[in-house]
Structures are given as structure tokens and as C-alpha cells.
């Protein structure tokens, strides 16, 4: 057990060790300073030449959002049709069929928005072509979208008074060429050398000891698995995601994938400090986020190590902890750590089945997604955190007797309106979605649909409720992991989660960019002794309190009926 926990600590320490210089490097890239990756410049210039874009043209926040939304729409249309007609496209050695329209809608959306809900299984639901040129492509561009929008916000925070916030395409392309691509290549190589497939040959087969012939899906998977973590996407090559022995063969790949998924979210926080030149502020943000991680991960590890009380009641010892749904090569501590990391950042890849984790762990996983900013997804993590900051600044600004201001700009009704709307959005979508499915289950269980509502849930009662709550929470957080007991590949779930995915992705990007853009336009107010210091420990505690209170108040009743009720009925 000690070894397992040591493994977790080493993995986290390694992440920090890499995130620090990476953050420094990212800040340099976006400040336009010289870096080792300048050899990519000719490739970037080629892109701009082909597309007729001037990367030096300054944009205001509205132009940024217009560019972002337009290109995302283009990707969605492309992905939707490619998935629909994938059976007619090349690179389909396993002869997989095209997706149904509702599944293609859900899949396209969920990859565009960096969620990767995956209501299909990678082995049978997609082809090599769509895996590589649709899904893996979207892994890169959706992660870059998030980072580029963060840079827009940082640019707005950096300057005193400005409406010029850099060029979206410049940020976007640089994210891919200077950050994602080089790192993904390194990770893919490590994975490939450890046994992750990188082949175009289609299914392999072997004859088992029983004498059966077993077909084993393969494919050029290593690259996709690298970027799925690096870009906090989470959509894996195989259905079982990183629990699959080919997607995550051993402890080295475990550490690699673990570090890969959380290194960028942490590095972005450090980059923030270097970029806007407020390192202390970045440390406070990092501190609050890490505190959040610890609050979630420690109870989860303890619960999982202790094993299931239901099994203990039967008088069966569980020396290895709760092993249901877990891979022996990772163990309960490692899986618990993974399950929290993958939910607090928006990866959503899994190396164990969350459905089988203890109720308390499920609670922590859901909380991680509800907060969605303890590190958070690539770039968007800080955008979500920014909204919490706005509310914390507003309330604590009042508490020190000044009209609230953040980084030298006054926070007024318009910004509060936007922040309030975004805060409202998450509980609305998560609760309304779960309410809708609960209503249908309670009142129309036998509705004449392709999959009857009564057949949705693997488990009755509280756990079934958790499955639905988890699904909508995961969609809203653009996480993509699932409480896999849910029968979700049908019109109801594909469409309802699809819409939540779109809103849950773009509104929380639009909101912070708009607030930051509006604030940057205002007069700069130099800090004085009476100014609230946002880089202080006190303000960090305040932000943490705001995060906890908002989420606790929004979700307590729902969580009480799901994991909390399950927890108490087990003990």
C-alpha cells in the first residue's frame, strides 16, 4: 500500500517538475520571445499564406470570439459528416459501419468541445480514418481552442487599458506547433515503446488456451492516446479507454499518461504568472487549486484502499482494497488518484471503472467536475476559475469598503451579469438534465423508444440516480468520463447531452473572454493600501470558500439523493 501511495506522490512531483519549465516556456512563446521552437515558424507562415490570414492583426474580444466560434462550427460540420459516412471512407480495415445521425451528432459535438463522451466503442464505432483525421485532429484543435482563449484573457489582464488583444489565429496555431505537437510526439514515442499499438494492420487474432479464436483490435493508437491526455480530451482509441491493456500497458505508461494529462493545466497556471508578470497571483491560484485536488483525492484514496463495506460485512478481507472495476497493474490508490485528476481537469479518460468506485469516490469525482476548475481543462480551467474570482472579488471588495476591482479594473454591473449567468449555467444544465431524465424514468418508464427508459440504468436506486447525474455533470464539464452503467447510446441521451456539451463549452469561454475584454477597456486604477490584494493568501481562501459554497449550495440536494444516500446506506 505504501508503494502505491508513493507512486502517486512521485507521479505528482514529476508533474510539477515538468510543469514549471513548461509554464515558463509557454509564457515566452505567447510573449513572442525567442524560443527553441522557432524552427516551426516557416510552417506557421505557410499556413497563414495558404489561408490568407494576417497573424499580426490585432483583434478585440468580440473578433476573437467570432473567429473561435466560426472555426469550431466548421469543425463540427466536418466531423458530423465524416462520422456519418465513415463506412464509405478509406482506412476502414475492420469494416465498421457509419454512425447513426444522433450518435454522429453527439460524437462530433463532444470531440469539438474537448469532452469526448464517447457513446460508442472505439473498436467498432469508428474507423482508422475517423479516429485519425476526425477525432485525433479534434483532440489537437479543441485543446488549442481552449488555450488560445485563455491567452486572450491573459492578454486582457496583462495590459493596463487596451482593446487590442492579439490575434486568435496566432495563439491558436502557436499552441499546436509550439506546445501540443512537440510534446505529443515525445509522449507517443514513450507509449509506443511500452506496447501501445501504432499499426495500420487492423485486427489481430490469437487462439486462446480454451481454443477460442480471439480478435484483438489494434490501430495507430499511440499518437491519439498521447494527445488525448495532453489536450485534456480523454477520448481514447479503445472502448475501455486507459483501462485497456493496449492503451495503458504498464506502470510506466500509467505515469506517462498521468503526467501528460495534468502537466498542461498546471503549466498554464505558471505560464499565467510569467505572462502577466504576477507570479504571486499565480502561486495563490495554484495553491487554491492544489488544495482542491487534495480535498478530493485524499478521501478517495482512503476509501478505495479500505475496500467496500458491503464486502467487509460478509466477513471477507480485502487486503488489496476495493478492486472491483480496477486493473491489477494500477491498484486502488493509483486508480483513485487517476479518477480524481481526470475529473478535476476535463480529461475524462479512465483507468478504472468509476461506476464501481465507492460512493464517496463517486461523490468526489462529481464534485471535481462540478467545480471544474481545480486546474481544470487545458486553458479553460483558468477561465472557469476566473468566473469564481470575479464573484469572490465582488463580495470581498465590498467587504473591504471599496467598489470591487480586479487587476486595476472596476468590476461593475455588466461584468457581474455575465459572471452570474455563467455561474447559473452549470447548475441549470446539470440539474435540469438530470431532472428531465428522472422525470421520464419516474413517470414514463415504458415509453416506446428504441431503448426503453426503464432499461437505461444498470442499477436501481441511488446508484442509478448517480449514473444520470454523473452523465450530465460530465457533459457540462466537458469531461467525457462516464459512470458506465448508463445505456447512453440512444436518441434521448445523445441529443440531450449534445446540447449541454455545446452550451457547457462555449458559454464558459465566451463569458470570461467578454468580461476580461470589457474590463481591459476600462480605465486602469493603480493599487493603493485600500485596494483588495488578489495575490494574497486571504483572497485565495476567499476564492476557495466561494467555490465550495456555490457548488455545495447548487448540488447538495442532488448529491444527497445520489452518492450521499448510497454512502449512508452502505455504512
Amino acid at each position: 500500500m505504501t508503494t502505491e501511495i508513493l507512486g502517486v506522490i512521485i507521479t505528482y512531483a514529476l508533474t510539477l517538475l515538468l510543469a514549471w519549465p513548461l509554464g515558463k516556456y509557454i509564457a515566452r512563446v505567447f510573449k513572442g520571445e525567442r524560443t527553441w521552437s522557432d524552427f516551426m515558424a516557416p510552417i506557421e507562415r505557410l499556413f497563414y499564406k495558404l489561408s490568407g490570414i494576417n497573424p499580426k492583426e490585432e483583434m478585440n474580444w468580440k473578433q476573437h470570439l467570432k473567429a473561435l466560434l466560426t472555426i469550431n462550427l466548421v469543425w463540427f460540420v466536418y466531423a458530423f459528416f465524416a462520422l456519418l459516412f465513415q463506412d464509405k471512407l478509406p482506412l476502414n480495415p475492420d469494416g465498421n459501419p457509419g454512425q447513426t445521425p444522433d450518435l454522429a451528432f453527439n460524437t462530433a459535438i463532444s470531440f469539438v468541445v474537448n469532452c469526448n463522451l464517447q457513446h460508442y466503442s472505439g473498436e467498432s464505432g469508428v474507423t482508422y480514418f475517423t479516429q485519425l483525421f476526425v477525432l485525433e485532429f479534434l483532440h489537437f484543435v479543441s485543446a488549442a481552442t481552449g488555450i488560445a482563449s485563455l491567452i486572450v484573457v491573459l492578454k486582457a489582464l496583462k495590459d493596463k487599458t487596451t482593446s487590442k488583444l492579439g490575434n486568435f489565429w496566432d495563439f491558436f496555431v502557436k499552441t499546436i506547433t509550439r506546445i501540443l505537437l512537440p510534446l505529443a510526439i515525445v509522449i507517443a514515442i514513450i507509449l509506443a515503446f511500452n506496447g501501445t499499438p501504432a499499426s495500420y494492420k487492423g485486427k489481430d487474432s490469437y487462439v486462446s488456451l480454451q481454443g477460442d479464436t480471439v480478435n484483438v483490435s489494434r490501430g495507430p493508437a499511440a499518437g491519439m492516446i498521447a494527445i488525448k491526455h495532453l489536450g485534456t480530451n480523454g477520448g481514447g482509441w479503445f472502448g475501455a479507454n486507459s483501462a485497456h491493456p493496449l492503451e495503458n500497458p504498464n506502470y510506466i505508461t500509467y505515469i506517462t499518461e498521468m503526467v501528460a494529462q495534468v502537466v498542461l493545466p498546471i503549466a498554464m497556471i505558471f505560464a499565467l504568472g510569467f505572462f502577466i508578470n504576477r507570479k504571486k497571483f499565480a502561486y495563490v491560484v495554484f495553491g487554491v487549486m492544489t488544495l482542491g485536488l487534495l480535498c478530493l483525492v485524499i478521501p478517495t484514496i482512503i476509501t478505495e484502499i479500505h475496500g467496500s463495506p458491503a464486502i467487509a460485512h460478509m466477513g471477507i478481507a480485502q487486503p488489496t482494497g476495493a478492486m472491483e472495476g480496477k486493473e491489477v497493474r494500477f491498484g486502488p490508490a493509483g486508480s483513485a488518484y487517476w479518477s480524481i485528476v481526470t475529473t478535476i481537469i476535463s480529461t475524462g479518460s479512465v483507468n478504472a471503472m468509476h461506476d464501481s468506485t465507492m460512493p464517496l469516490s463517486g461523490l468526489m469525482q462529481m464534485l471535481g467536475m462540478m467545480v471544474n476548475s481545480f486546474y481544470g481543462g487545458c486553458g479553460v480551467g483558468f477561465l472557469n476559475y476566473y468566473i469564481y474570482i470575479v464573484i469572490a472579488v465582488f463580495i470581498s471588495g465590498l467587504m473591504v469598503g471599496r467598489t470591487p476591482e480586479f487587476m486595476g479594473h472596476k468590476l461593475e454591473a455588466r461584468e457581474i451579469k455575465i459572471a452570474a449567468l455563467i455561474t447559473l449555467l452549470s447548475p441549470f444544465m446539470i440539474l435540469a438534465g438530470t431532472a428531465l431524465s428522472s422525470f421520464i424514468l419516474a413517470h414514463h418508464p415504458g415509453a416506446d423508444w428504441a431503448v426503453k427508459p426503464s432499461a437505461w440504468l444498470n442499477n436501481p436506486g441511488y446508484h442509478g440516480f448517480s449514473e444520470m447525474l454523473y452523465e450530465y455533470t460530465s457533459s457540462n464539464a466537458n469531461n467525457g468520463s462516464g459512470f458506465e452503467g448508463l445505456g447512453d447510446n440512444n436518441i434521448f441521451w445523445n441529443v440531450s447531452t449534445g446540447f449541454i456539451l455545446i452550451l457547457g463549452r462555449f458559454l464558459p469561454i465566451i463569458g470570461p473572454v467578454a468580461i476580461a475584454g470589457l474590463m481591459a477597456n476600462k480605465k486602469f486604477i493603480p493599487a493603493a493600501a485600500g485596494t483588495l490584494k488578489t495575490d494574497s493568501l486571504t483572497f485565495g481562501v476567499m476564492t476557495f470558500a466561494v467555490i465550495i459554497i456555490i457548488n455545495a449550495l447548487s448540488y447538495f440536494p442532488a448529491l444527497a439523493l445520489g452518492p450521499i444516500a448510497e454512502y449512508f446506506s452502505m455504512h
Partner: protein
Amino acid sequence: MKNKDNRLFPRELVKESLQQSFIKLNPRLMIKNPVMFTVELGTIVMLIVTLYAIITRHTDQGSVAYNGLVFLVLLLTVLFANFAEAIAEARGKAQAESLRKTREETPARLIRTIGEVFMNEVQVISSAQLRKGDVFLCEPGDIIPADGEIIEGLASIDESAITGESAPVIREAGGDKSSVVGGTKVLSDRIKVQVSTEPGESFLDKMIALVEGASRQKTPNEIALTILLASFTLVFIIVCVTLKPFADYAQTPITIAAFISLFVCLIPTTIGGLLSAIGIAGMDRALRANVITKSGKAVETAGDVDVLLLDKTGTITIGNRKATNFYAANGVSKEEFIKLCAISSLSDETPEGKSIVELAGKEVVSKLSVNGATLVKFTAETRSSGIDLSDGTRIRKGASDAMQKLAAHAGHSVPAETLEKVKAIAKDGGTPLVVALNSQVQGVIELQDIIKPGIQERFDRLRKMGVKTVMVTGDNPLTAKYIATKAGVDDFIAEAKPEDKMAYIKKEQTEGRLVAMMGDGTNDAPALAQADVGVAMNSGTQAAKEAGNMVDLDNDPTKLIEIVEIGKQLLMTRGTLTTFSIANDVAKYFAIVPALFIASIPALQGINIMRLHSPESAILSAVIFNAIIIPLLIPLALRGVAYKPIGASALLRRNLLIYGVGGVIVPFIGIKLIDLFISMFF
């Protein structure tokens, strides 16, 4: 102001406010406050449920008594919130009325005019009939019937009815002290006064209208907070509405009373109910400090002020310079020199002259006489003043360079030690006054600005509040610097002209700072208008009063400091009560959520950490706590949270600890106690 009533709830106001609390139940008035409006809707629903239970005798929604009680508590919640607003309004109004009362229905001697020509005829009319532009006459013993500006004459006036200050003040035509206020009393001399405002449009009338709510507009910060509170309310609407299908899934029936109680407890009713009271109380507190504010926004802005422009004279130093030392030149005896100085100043009416006599001492002065002497007044040309005695002796005192010239002209040299002393005095921030006898320099008098006692501490306090203080003075830079350092101000504008003030304000504003200043003269008006917070003295000209956004009835230049604190208190009270209100929800959840589900999910007894008696008692305790916390906090809302200048972070920690952590803990105790009581019945 005299008779300042500091009781929070005077009986006569309480009665009126209670009435108002019911009048304010009108939904058309309630909708201005979205949080309390939703509570009112909930109350109506509970009324219907109670009636339903009475009429049909069904108990599927709980007993009549239970539903009736919930209804009553909710109704009380709304009434308490209305009462908070009503009492704040009543207090503000009473305060303003007491100022206005002084001027009602006094006789006025109207001077009739034909065109531009004043007739000598005086007509006595009621003050209420005076119109803007009318001219009236006041004689000793008259109560001035209306606000106006003296157009002719000079008078000493007793303003104690307004300011509480018993010493009479001089007001005269033409200068910066030409305004008179209705209700004050003329003690000496005759003045002609032109009425400056239409009846019902004075600053006081405007302020009463602001307090009464007719023209009260929400301030930008109040709007922002209302938006935030409304969004919290929306979140809780979502939470409560979605709970229905969740409960259906869990096969748990939830009564309407439980739903509404949960909702009302969760939405920020505490701050929602007290928000407008806090704003009104801010204006009221300003009024109690004898400051009339022209808008609620002005008070709020005052809390944000970064830079304070203060006139040296009267604010930092006591009135005028005072003589502090006599330095005789070599060869002149000190006694002789003092005598000389005293003689030259005996009939000098300037404050400096008086202070010289004072310093010389009664013993010296009593032996002197200046019969038959001619006084030589100060002119800008000679820059000296003095006296020609009947025996032909000429004594002059004046600025060093002027006196040097005088001596040189008569062929005398100036003693070196005197010149040195002159330099030393100037360096120490004093003003040297060189004295010459028949054009021969005899020595130098040191005049010093006397810094008000306690002013350093006030500036220190301002610095801790993060406010930069700037001294404005006509003195030369050397003197200004000395006084600035001694008084502890952060910056100064020396040899200041009105346009320098304006330039300084604009410069600070372009750098993003908010500037407050106080002024009285017509030439201050542009700067008062430019400043973010401009406080005009009531004694100042009408132009200055129109330009500023506050009027100080006491004409007290240090009032700015109080105003800044009132502004900060206003914002802090909002912030802390918001925090308290939201922090309360944690305990309410732990009371109500188990109560909702315990019947069908016994396992959830685990989150009933307060061990409340029964679901009904838990819900009732939570709504009762939610209701009574409002009246309990009314005193805090009216008085404001105490402001301590300990730096922003320390202040945040302090308030977070008291109102955040306290806000989490208090309701746990409160609800438990109420439950212990209620459990005797339910």
C-alpha cells in the same frame, strides 16, 4: 445639529414604519426587490395551501397548523424586510425634516421690485410664498426665511440651528461666504438676500425625496449586487424545481410547504431584505454628520476615494498664522523690541497682528498707548504695514525683502544675524516678519502655522485606508513642504491657484484615481464639479453648492474624512451581510434536506447533524431562523459595519472570520435552539 436623535428605533417612527411594512406588501412595490418578491409569491402559495387544508380537511400536505405556521413565518419574513426599509426611510426623513422644520412658515420681508429697481417698500409675506430670485430684507433678530445669497450688506449670523455651533459667523455680499441658510438667525446688521431656490427644490428637499424612495435610484454597486443576488435566487429556483422529479425518482413525496420553505431559506433573504435599508442608512448617516448628499451614489463613491485635496487653512492649520517668537537684532534689547512689535500691532486687526499682541503679553501691552497714531494698512505694493506715532516715529513690519528695500533706501544696512534668522525661519516653515524703526531694522518676528492638534493621527488613519492626502496652499513651496511634512500629508500644491487644483484633479483622474475635495468659492466650482466627490460648504456660494455633490452644513473642512468612512461603511455593510446571508445556507441545508427525505430514505439521518427533532420541526426552525435574523440585523444595517483602517487584507480576514465563518456557525446554533423549543409542539 442639535437634538440629534441617536436612538435606533424611536417609538413614533416604529409605529409609522409598521404601517409602511404592510403598505409595501403591494406587489407592484415589491417587484423592485426580486429576492423578497419571490418570498411574497411563496407566501401567497402557502396561504392557498393553508386554505386548502382548512376547507378540504385533507392532510396530504401536512396539518393545518403546520401549513398555517409556515405561512405566518413567511409573511413575517416579508414584513420584517419591509420594516427594515421603512424604518431606514423614516429615520432619514425624520432627520431631514428636523432640519427643514426650522424654516417653515416664518415671516419674510419681501422687497418689491419694478424691473431691476428695488423699491423701498417692504411687504411682509410668508416664507412659503418666496420664489427663486425674490429679494428679502433681514434685520437683527430675524429668522432668515429661505436659502439665498446676500446681495447687499454684511451680517453676523447664528447658524446653531443647523450646525449646532454657537459662535456666530460673518456672511457678506460678494465674497465666497455669501450664502445664508433658511432657519438661521441674523444677530447684527441688515442684509438683502436673494432667494436661490424654488420652494421644495432645496438640497434638503431633494435629499428627503431621495430617502422617501420616490426618486431613489439604485446605485451602480447596488445594481450589481442585486444582479448577483437575483442569480443566486435563480440557482435556488432551479435547485427547488428540479428536486421534484428527483423526489419522484426516489419515490419520496415532498409537501409544498417543504418546497417553499427550502426555497425561501436558501435564497439570500437576509441581504435581500436589508439591501435598500443599508443604502438609505448610508445617506442617513451622512445627514447625521450634517452632510446633505445629492445622490446615494455620491456616498458610495466617497468610499472609493483615493486622493483627498484639503485646503491648508482651516483644515490642516488653525485659521491663520500666529506669532511664536521675537528675535531682536544685536544691539537692540529684547524688551524694547517686543514693545516695538506690540505697538505696531495694537490697532492691527489682522489675525497675525492680534497674535503678536497676544504673544507680547498683557503686561507689556497694558503700558502702551497709541493715542493720536495713524495706522498704515498693508498694501500689496509696500508689502508691509505699521503705525506712525504722534511723535513722528515710524514703525513698519513686513516681508523680509520689502523691509530690506526700505532700509536700503534710507541708507541703512540690515544686520547679518537678522538676515540669517529670516532664512532659518523660512526653512522651518514659518513666515519671518521683519520690523523696522524709522527704516532701521530692529529684528524679526517669527510667524508659524499652527497645525491642528490630532490632525496627524487623522492623516495616518487615511493613509491606512489607502487614501492619499494633498494639501493645497497659497504658501511658497518651502513653507508648504515644511507644513506638509509636519502635518503628515502625502503631497502638496504650493502657491496654488484655482486652476492648479483643477489640473491636479485631472491628472490624478487620468491615472485612474478618484479625487475628493472640499471648497466654497465660486472659483472652486469647476474643480468641485470635476472631482468625483465634491463637498461644498454650506457657507459657500450657490455656484459651489450646485457644482459639488454634497453640501456640508457645518462648513467643517475635516468632514471629508468622515464622509470617506461613511462610504466605506456602506459598501462593507453590503458585503458582509451578503457573505453572512449566503454562509447561512449551509446550516439551512443540513436542516431541511434530511427533513425532506428522511421518511423514505432513513439512511439520510446521517446528514441530520443537528439531530433536529422531526422533519416538521426542522423545516419550521429553519424558516423561523431565516425570518428573525432580519430584524436582528436591522441595527447593524442602520449603523453600518465598523470600519477599521487596518489594510485591505486584514480587513477582509476580519470580516470573513466574523461574517463568513460566523455566518456558517450561528445558524447551526440558532436552528438547533429553535428546534428544541418547537419540538415541544411538533
